[in-house]
């Protein structure tokens, strides 16, 4: 979403500038030499088309809905394009240390997958929560407790500013050990 914002923000700015410029140019043209109006934007045609429409007309409602959907998209884009950094405790004042959720997931994933009883695992991490899903050939409940301890110790080794909650789910798969 941040990349999309990075691309769309200048384009939206450009769009605003173009609309503003068009309004100025057309108004000045109409004022200075009414014979050559409209210069670029065919606004008299648009005016004629909107002539008979009331607020109840279907096309007015349709246009409003389209504008609303575009506006909602732009609004949501602005709201969700935040950073997802995970903050670590500051070693010294004046220094801020961050890492990515992906890094946390990778570190936890290595530990979990290196465990003997785990057949496969997936890890999703954010600053607030680490979710581990693992598959094993052994009874799930025992492995779950071991894995939870393992993840907790791994996270404890990282000096995170706030310790994320840990959610571990283990399923037993069929197979030969």
């Amino acid at each position: 979403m941040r990349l999309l914002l990075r691309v769309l923000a200048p384009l939206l700015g450009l769009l605003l500038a173009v609309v503003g410029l068009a309004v100025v140019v057309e108004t000045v043209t109409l004022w200075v030499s009414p014979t050559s109006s409209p210069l670029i934007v065919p606004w008299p045609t648009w005016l004629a088309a909107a002539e008979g429409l009331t607020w109840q007309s279907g096309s007015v409602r349709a246009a409003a809905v389209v504008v609303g959907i575009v506006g909602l998209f732009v609004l949501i884009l602005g709201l969700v394009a935040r950073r997802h950094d995970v903050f670590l405790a500051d070693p010294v004042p004046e220094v801020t240390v961050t890492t990515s959720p992906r890094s946390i997931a990778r570190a936890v994933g290595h530990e979990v997958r290196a465990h003997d009883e785990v057949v496969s695992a997936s890890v999703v991490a954010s600053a607030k929560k680490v979710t581990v899903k693992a598959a094993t050939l052994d009874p799930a409940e025992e492995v779950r407790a071991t894995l939870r301890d393992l993840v907790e110790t791994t996270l404890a080794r990282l000096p995170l500013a706030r310790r994320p909650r840990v959610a571990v789910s283990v399923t037993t798969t069929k197979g030969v050990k």
Partner: protein
Amino acid sequence: MSRRSRAAVARSAGGDRTLTTVLGLVLVAASVLALLVGFGVFGSFRAQRPVIDPLIVEWASAHATAARWIAIGIGVVLFLIGLWWTLRSLRPEPRPDVSLSELPGERLTVEHAAICDAVRHDAELIDGVSRARARLVGTPQKPALRLSLTLVEGTDVRDVWADLDGRVLARAREAFAVSALPTAVRLELDATSAPTPARVQ
């Protein structure tokens, strides 16, 4: 965590986000208002009025000069906001040179590239760091350091911190003759490790 080191973590997208959000709000508000008028929330008579309202048309033709000035004003404001927004979000993040002395005759600045090469080289010498990148952000008078370190698997982050503060940042502070240099460090953990151990069952 100081405000300046916190600001150095990444380029801020705050301006873009604010403007995008405001634009979205305006569009949504316009749409909702038009729909509400159309569904007769503000009176069924108003819902039946033309979109190009005769009252407004009448006023505009009666006060042609004022109407034109208003249109030009709106256009200029939109144009300036749009242009400022575009230039602002296309401008690259500055890489400031650091000025060590502003005294006439003794002006001394250090180039951005020179500082960053030195810091990066120092950082890559730390045990457990496989790759380092460094750049300065902020202004020449108030620079801040942004450092991203890639750590090999199994490195203890606390050891890296000790080395970082004791060697790399201490030298940078010494070079700039400042007591504190706001720094944002971004760690990539376990990125260049050996593949997950093979499992033979």
